[in-house]
């Protein structure tokens, strides 16, 4: 615990964060607390950056199969500033709008970052989701083909953002499951 005080955040900053994110006042303050616990002593929270490992070890993300992708997508230059953490919490909060969630889900699932979810991405997703000892090569290819046949509308063997959006936008389960509570309080 450093010398950073809880109420170091100015009122105007708090108002601004409330306006620009989907988080409530209490949630922002709780995340501020959590952030301060991880930052080194003596520095202001606005200048500190956290590494991806520190964020990955947060209780909310520790066992998530996609934590490395989440950290990659939301960090800038492989570090997290306080505002990056807020943006991440905002996207994963309950009040976030569906379009934002779909946009970031697409970025998270796009492992090779070519702007599409192609077969390679799908295979990596499936390996993360299932027990990797149990999944044979055939099952992987079978599943990949099924997913593409269901969602790929222009038959280019990859999912573009529009196709992904079309598949997810009508699924309320997606909105409910794409949520993480970052604040410990």
């Amino acid at each position: 615990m450093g010398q950073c005080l809880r109420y170091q955040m100015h009122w105007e900053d708090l108002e601004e964060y409330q306006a620009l994110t989907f988080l409530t006042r209490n949630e922002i303050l709780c995340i501020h607390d959590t952030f301060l616990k991880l930052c080194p002593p003596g520095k202001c929270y606005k200048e500190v950056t956290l590494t991806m490992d520190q964020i990955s070890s947060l209780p909310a993300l520790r066992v998530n199969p996609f934590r490395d992708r989440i950290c990659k997508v939301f960090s800038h230059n492989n570090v997290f500033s306080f505002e990056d953490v807020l943006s991440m919490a905002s996207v994963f909060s309950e009040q976030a709008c569906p379009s934002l969630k779909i946009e970031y889900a697409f970025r998270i699932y796009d492992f090779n970052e070519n702007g599409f979810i192609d077969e390679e991405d799908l295979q990596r997703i499936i390996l993360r989701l299932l027990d990797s000892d149990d999944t044979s090569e055939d099952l992987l290819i079978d599943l990949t083909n099924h997913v593409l046949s269901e969602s790929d509308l222009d038959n280019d063997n990859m999912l573009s953002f529009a196709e992904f959006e079309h598949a997810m936008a009508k699924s309320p389960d997606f909105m409910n499951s794409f949520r993480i509570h970052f604040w410990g309080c």
Partner: protein
Amino acid sequence: MLSDDYSNEIIIEVEDILPGVQSHPSSNQSVREMAQVNSRVSMVSSLSDVEVVDYQTFSNRNEKRRSQLLQFSTSLNNSMSQTLCSPECLGIDTSHSSHETIQGQKLIASLIPMASRDRIKAIRNQPRSMEEKRKLRKIVDKEKSKQSHHIFEFNCCAQCLNSISRAYQRSHNSLSELLNSISLWQKTLKVIGGKFGTSVLSYFNFLRWLLKFNIFSFIMNFSFIIIPQFTMAEKNTLQFTGWEFLTGGGYFRDTVMYYGFYTNSTIQHGNSRASYNMQLAYIFTISACLITCFFSLLFSMAKYFRNNFINPHIYSRGIAKLIFCWDFTVTHENAVKLKQKNLSTEIRENLSEIRQENVRFTVHQQLTRFFAHMAAWVVSTGGAIACCAAVYYLAEYNSEFLRMHRDPGAVLLLPFVVSCINLVVPRFYSLFRLVERYEMPRREVYVLLIRNIFLKISIIGILCYYWLNIVALSGEECWETLIGQEIYQLLLMDFVFSLADSLLGEFLRRIIGMRLITSLGIQEFDIARNVLELIYAQTLVWIGIFFCPLLPFIQMITLFTMFYAKNISLMNFQPPSKAWRASQMMTFFIFLLFFPSFTGVLCTLAITIWRLKPSDDCGPFRGLPFFIHSIYSWIDTLRTRPSYLWVVWIYQNLIGSVHFFFILTLIV
């Protein structure tokens, strides 16, 4: 949601020309700039249309869009620096007519004409970092304030409205935050969600939501009926034995708990002219509770239907859904491993289902399946009808039985039998799946649900019929209190059974599953059965609120205890294995709460109030020919007073007329 869709347009459809931008009364400069933007965009789009071929269009356009977004920060910085250094124009650099800059300009241009609340919403919905959003907001505010100098739009009235709306927004925000902070059980629910996922969490949320109804009803009843009655309370001469908690009779009969205790007089205190008419208070308070519940249910249903509309597309067993809808809320390591295992099983099952789709059954097999289904339906319906008949005859025989056995516990026979039926028969229905085979396991869940619902609704229906037709007309003294007592007994017995089941039964089941018959394994948390039990109890409470005004308080205690009991007994369960469509099922359960449950309650109460004769010597409506006559006589007294004629007018023209209800039904 309109502004969300609007902001989506900005992100996804690059080539669309934004509507409404040109209608904004801006300065000539910006109009020219807008026209330039639009023409450039159309030029660019026509270029892109020319150079692509057929099915490549889709992916190419998307690729361009993706690269635009990824490089947006640089473009935004460019456009911002251009705007800042040349304040008069929107800073289109004609030499780099790249998509990025144009898109940045388009975004800013589209944000300017919006109202400030919509603008903030649109900026919040952008998938960009905080720094970019902040810059965007600054630029747009700057542009907006510049333009407002030219346009004398903000006269006093608009400024007033603006400040009022801002104050309202701020108070609304702080109120909702306050409500969130005092929200019950936040931490516990988070832990449950982390261990079991969203599906089990939905059961507990439903429980909490029902608790709110009961708290509200209790507060209304307490303030308007019970407290005034306390001031007029007569001394209770009956003896208190311990049985009252279970039977509700004895000492409790002459307390505020039951209808019979309430006075029919007009309470007046000392010399003050203010009087409190107990009859009207009683009927108006209960109506107010029920009307509030009605509208609250209606709005919740509308909200759920809007967010989770029942799309037949969802019923398909898609693999894509399973792959992409991983539950991110699970935060315990064991739960994650378990979820992975369950997901693997479900994916394999879905794959085999898809493969089996092409398998055609022979005629013989089809007939066998058809007959199995028919037999199961006949048995289940017959079973439900048999149970109802048993309950009815038992209820009729109950009075003789009570005369023969003077034991205070003897009144509990009927509730005991009903609770046993509610415990045993649903489990018996679950056994049918050994005989019936469904192609889709999902259909099995729905069929089971429908059978259970039919059972519970018919039991409640038959009991209401018995109460309204037999007990009310039997000529007993104070029949309303008798009905109140029976409802209380049913509720309490149901509570005792549920508690025993949660704490003991499930524990035993786990021991059996783990040690004795290991092939059974640990059971899954059956959300449907538990939610149906909640709906059943809540229906009883709503029916009984007229006869026993303290019932919401009892239900509050029940729900509170059940929350903790279920929470403790969760350790005997494993999370549901199928990807449970929590959102859809919640919509369905709220609909169930509204349609058979609440509307049934309304019908029952309507029959009571309009058709039944109150008992002669107890309760607030003693001596009247019908309950509704209290309202009639009140309207008559109001007719004599000229200052209240508007109430009479409302009564005659709205409540008394058929057209109003027709319109109301249409609106609903």
